[in-house]
Structures are given as structure tokens and as C-alpha cells.
């Protein structure tokens, strides 16, 4: 590792960090079985995308990325609200949050 | 940046943060004393008056008691969360309080020390100046809900969990009304910066509306005269945010033992207490800033005071220090008044029932805050015509 990579923080650093966070979230969605953890992993992915938007926004010098983040945040909050409401309903019905127990559509 | 800065400036800024934190923590015993004596006064009894003059040494005795109590962890507790919760209780209050400007900046001219010349500095009488001050304060203090949940769940006690769920539901419900109530204020001042807001409230009351200029020499130019409803809503919601009576459902002794801090004793309980008082202090500081002119002295603008100070002191540094000191005193008077109102209300109003609390937050405060926002928008538009 050269010192330029460590000292000179540029767009690449933010993009790689965001990519790593996104992949973490994706692995969570694929590997975990708890509904709520799945929802949380999706939030993590959305967050990493927000980070990319803001990084691009700064380095391109336009504010449109911030607007996108604003919209993504709103939609993520809405998605979390509905997702959690669904999780509560599912938990009330099956008394279980592991997706293995309700992969059949039979009530 | 950062590394190239003067060592002196970095040191002073670092020390300033420590001093502000210590000030916050040290204010708590005084407030506790005030609360106990004040409640005694309100209820027509004496209060603690045996230890030291006026019972002031009671604080010291309490501190010794808190520190020497047995360190107790319930069997069913999750030790990590159980210990982390009280520590986290201090953070939102301390971090948010540092963003509140308490006086005008102190300008220090060039001076000689250790055989070196140190350049001119400007020191803000606040922890750090953030452009989006109020957004930052709201964001940081919204993290307080985690403390409650961590404490409630980490204690492994049914009553703690119930108390924590109640308290956090209450906190996030009232956050909406809190945020909306100050939207009108932000629209009126046109800035998020707390210092700018204070600067706009100097001098006697005057504003222009549809081409007419209205001014009154008898009233200061404070936000309360422009946003009375917002002031009322804001102050009400902050009671709920800091879990104080009449909204302290989280504690509700008669049904929940002591709410989320049932299992905490000694110093850990004390830290929750400091956190609660930290919220009160932020609320009082913001109340003074938004609606009562912040650090400004009524009828006297900052420029006038600076001119006067330049006349009575020898150096420019001294003048700016004098101005800052006077403003700090002014801020402290307003700040202490609102802290006293918090105590006063606690010993005057009874507790709400939980459904009443939620109804009040969602069906009364929120619509009124929305109405205030819309009304303010229309009036600002009409005034600009």
C-alpha cells in the first residue's frame, strides 16, 4: 500500500466503501432467515447507495444526488413501516419470524 | 486542515468541550437541590435542610452514597447492554448541548506567551458551530430512544421492558410534534443556524408586513411575539421528550415500579438522571434561543453593547470578553428560568394516562403544529407581497 492511497481520500474510497456495505447487506438478505434481519439488510443496502449518491454529488459538484438521497430515505422509511407492519402480522399469525416457517402460501 | 492549525487553538477548543460537558454534569446536583427544595416549597414543607447551609451539602452526601452503593446486576440481565445503557444516556445530551451558542464569540488579539507571538483568535462560546445547528440537535437527541430500549431490554425485567417500550413510543411520537412545531420558527428566521437566529432577535420589536413597518419600543424583538403557538407546542413536547411529568409514563410508579430504570441503582441510576437533566437543559437552551432572544440582552443590540464595552475597557480583547460575559449572564438567566419552569410544572401537574398521552400527542399537538406551519407560511408570503 502506498501512502497516497491512505492519505489522499477521493471518490474511489467512498465508492469502494459503499460497495462493501452493499455486498454486506446483500449477503445478509441471502443468508439470514429472520424476516426482520432481512429488512435490516435491505436498509443497509439502501444506505450504501445513499453514500454513493452523496459522494458523486460532492465530486461532480451538483446537488441532484442529495435530492436522490432525500427520496431514497423517504421510500426506505415507508418500506420499513410497511415491512414491519407485515412482520408484526406474520408474527401474530405464525408466532415465528424465521422465513422457513412461512414459505408456503397456505394459511 | 486540522493538523496545520495552531496548537493553542486546538487545545482551547478541546478544553472548551470538556468545560461544557463538566458544566452540564455539575449543573445536575444544583438542579437536584433546587428540585428538592423547590418541591418542598411548593408542597409547603421544608425539604433537605440538615446537611450544610440550606441543605446544600446534601448533594455531596448523595454523591458519596451513589458512589459507594453495591454494584448490582440482575441474573436475567444482558450485562453488555445493562452497562452500556447508562453510559449512552449521557451522550445525546452532552453532544447536543455543545451545539448551543451561549454567548458572542471572544476575539483574542495578538499576544506574547512563552517567547512567541500568538496570532489573533476567535473563540466561540459554544462547543462547535454547525451550519445546520437545529437539525443536528434534533438528530442527536433523537438517539436518546436507544438508551431507554437498551436499558429496558438489557435489565431482563418485565416492568423495565414495558417502561422502555412506553417511553420510546412516547419519545418518537412526540418527536414529530416537536419537529413540526419549530418548522414555523425556522421558516420565519430563514436559517438553521442558532447564532443567526439569536442575532435576528436583537433590539425592540419591529417587523414589516405588506409594506408597513410595525415597531414597538416597549417589547423586545423576541420570537415569542411572532410564534406564540410554536413556543407553547415546543415547550410541551420537550416535557415528553425528557420524560418529565406530566408525561413521565415511563416511570409510572403505581403500575411499573420505576419503568426502564427499575433495575438500576447507585451511580448507574445517577447517569440516567444526568441524561434526563441534559434533555431539560437542551430544551431550556433551545427555548431561550428560539423564542426569548438567546444570549441577547433585551432592547440592547450586540453592536451597542460592543461600543459601550470598547469605551470602558482598555484592550479590544477585554472589550469582547466583557461583551461575551454579559451575554453569557443574560443567557444563563433565561436558561435557569426555563429549568425552574420544568421543576415547577413537575410538582404542579398530575400524570397523564397512557392513552391520553398518545391522543394528546397525535390528535392535539400534531394538528396544531401543522396548522402553525401552514399559517406561518401564508403570513410570510403575505408579508413579502
Amino acid at each position: 500500500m502506498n501512502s497516497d492511497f491512505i492519505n489522499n481520500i477521493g471518490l474511489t474510497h467512498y465508492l469502494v466503501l459503499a460497495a462493501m456495505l452493499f455486498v454486506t447487506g446483500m449477503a445478509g438478505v441471502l443468508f439470514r432467515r429472520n424476516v426482520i434481519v432481512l429488512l435490516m439488510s435491505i436498509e443497509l443496502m439502501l444506505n450504501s447507495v445513499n453514500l454513493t449518491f452523496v459522494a458523486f454529488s460532492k465530486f461532480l459538484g451538483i446537488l441532484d444526488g442529495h435530492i436522490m438521497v432525500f427520496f431514497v430515505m423517504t421510500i426506505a422509511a415507508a418500506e420499513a413501516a410497511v415491512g414491519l407492519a407485515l412482520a408484526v402480522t406474520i408474527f401474530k399469525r405464525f408466532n415465528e419470524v424465521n422465513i422457513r416457517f412461512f414459505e408456503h402460501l397456505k394459511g | 486542515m486540522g493538523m496545520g492549525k495552531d496548537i493553542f487553538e486546538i487545545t482551547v477548543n478541546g478544553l472548551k468541550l470538556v468545560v461544557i460537558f463538566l458544566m452540564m454534569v455539575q449543573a445536575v446536583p444544583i438542579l437536584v437541590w433546587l428540585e428538592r427544595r423547590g418541591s418542598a416549597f411548593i408542597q409547603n414543607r421544608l425539604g433537605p435542610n440538615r446537611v450544610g447551609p440550606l441543605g446544600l451539602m446534601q448533594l455531596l452526601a448523595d454523591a458519596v452514597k451513589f458512589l459507594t452503593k453495591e454494584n448490582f446486576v440482575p441474573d436475567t440481565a444482558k450485562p453488555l447492554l445493562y452497562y452500556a445503557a447508562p453510559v449512552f444516556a449521557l451522550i445525546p445530551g452532552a453532544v447536543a448541548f455543545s451545539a448551543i451558542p451561549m454567548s458572542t464569540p471572544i476575539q483574542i488579539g495578538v499576544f506574547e506567551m512563552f517567547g512567541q507571538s500568538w496570532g489573533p483568535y476567535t473563540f466561540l462560546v459554544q462547543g462547535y458551530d454547525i451550519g445546520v445547528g437545529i437539525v443536528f440537535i434534533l438528530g442527536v437527541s433523537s438517539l436518546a430512544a436507544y438508551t431507554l430500549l437498551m436499558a429496558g431490554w438489557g435489565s431482563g425485567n418485565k416492568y423495565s421492558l414495558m417502561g422502555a417500550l412506553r417511553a420510546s413510543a412516547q419519545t418518537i411520537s412526540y418527536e414529530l410534534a416537536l419537529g413540526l412545531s419549530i418548522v414555523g420558527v425556522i421558516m420565519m428566521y430563514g436559517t438553521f443556524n442558532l447564532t443567526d437566529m439569536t442575532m435576528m432577535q436583537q433590539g425592540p420589536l419591529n417587523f414589516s408586513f405588506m409594506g408597513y413597518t410595525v415597531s414597538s419600543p416597549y417589547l423586545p424583538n423576541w420570537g415569542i411575539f411572532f410564534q406564540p403557538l410554536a413556543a407553547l407546542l415546543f415547550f410541551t413536547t420537550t416535557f415528553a421528550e425528557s420524560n418529565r411529568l406530566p408525561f413521565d409514563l415511563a416511570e409510572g410508579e403505581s403500575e411499573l415500579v420505576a419503568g426502564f430504570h427499575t433495575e438500576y441503582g447507585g451511580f448507574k441510576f445517577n447517569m440516567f438522571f444526568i441524561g434526563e437533566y441534559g434533555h431539560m437543559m437542551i430544551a431550556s437552551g433551545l427555548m431561550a434561543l428560539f423564542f426569548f432572544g438567546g444570549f441577547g440582552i433585551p432592547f440592547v443590540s450586540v453592536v451597542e453593547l460592543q461600543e459601550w464595552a470598547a469605551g470602558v475597557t482598555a484592550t479590544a480583547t477585554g472589550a469582547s470578553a466583557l461583551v461575551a460575559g454579559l451575554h453569557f449572564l443574560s443567557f444563563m438567566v433565561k436558561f435557569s428560568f426555563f429549568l425552574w419552569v420544568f421543576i415547577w410544572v413537575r410538582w404542579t401537574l398530575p400524570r397523564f394516562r397512557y392513552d391520553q398521552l398518545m391522543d394528546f400527542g397525535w390528535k392535539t399537538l400534531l394538528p396544531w403544529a401543522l396548522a402553525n406551519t401552514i399559517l406561518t407560511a401564508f403570513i410570510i408570503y403575505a408579508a413579502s407581497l
Partner: protein
Amino acid sequence: MTADAFLFWFLAIVTLVSGLSVILNSNPIYSALCLAMTMVGVSALFVTLNAYFIAGVQLIVYAGAVMVLFVMVIMLFDLKKDLQTFARGMFTGGVKLASVGLIAGLVVGAIKSAELFTEKVADNPVTTGNGMESTKALGQILFTKYIFGFEALGVLLLVIAVGAVALARSKGGTHEQ
């Protein structure tokens, strides 16, 4: 190392470690608390990118409201350790791992091979002032250029609020019907 670089590396490590603990912790409570920590880290990263207002909104909306909801729901369910934290099956697991690795490689490779521009210094509205200027500009384009999206989001939020209440509604409760 400069202060900026130190801040970035510190925050990067905090976000990555807490992000990883979200998916590795078998207890959902700790997952949620770690995710909250990630959100705070991302918010601090926004500050290093001069997006002060977005950082504040991130704290209020994500860390202060969404994650509190998650933690509350998990505590309400009183979930213990997950019995089967991770999906089983060697083959599907391998496929999943391969796909995660593939997307990671693709993304990082794309970033590495792309000709990334250096920071635009002159005439950059994002880096002006201490956040006030860019916040004002943000408001202006939000209510002019993106007004349709803003209104559409308002409608979406209303629909979501009604839908969530309808979904989670139960008979009984503290209020009379």
C-alpha cells in the same frame, strides 16, 4: 496521515465492522443496534462529504425513527437467539456466496477500471460555506426541479401510513372502536 484521511478510515472501519455484525450476530437485537451504529457512521461520512443537512436527516429519520421502530418491534416480540441464523444447504449456500463474491468483484472492478474524475473544486455548490448555502440550494431545487417527485412522495407516504395502520390494526387495544 492528515486529519481528513484519519477521519475517513476511522469511519470506514466503524461502518464496515458494525455493518458486518448486523448479518453475523445471531441475536436480532444486537443486529438492530449494530445497524443503528452503521447509520450513525454513514451520517458522519455524509458530514465528511459536506452534506450537512442530509447527515442530519439521516440521523433523524434512519437512526432516530426507523431503527428505533425495528428495535421496538424486536423487543415486543421478545425474540431470543435465532435457532437457525443462517440458511442451510451446501449447494445453495455456495451459489449465494458465489453471487455475492461476483457482485463484489464486479463493482470493485468497475470502480477500479473506470477513469474517475478528480474533485470539482471551482463552482461546486456542495462544498460552499458551512452547510447553510448548500441547504438553501437543496431546498430550491427540491421545490422547483423535483417538485413532482416531492408531491408523489407525499402521496406515497399517505398511502403507506394508511396501509401500515390497516395492516397492524388489531381488535381490542386501549381504544374503543
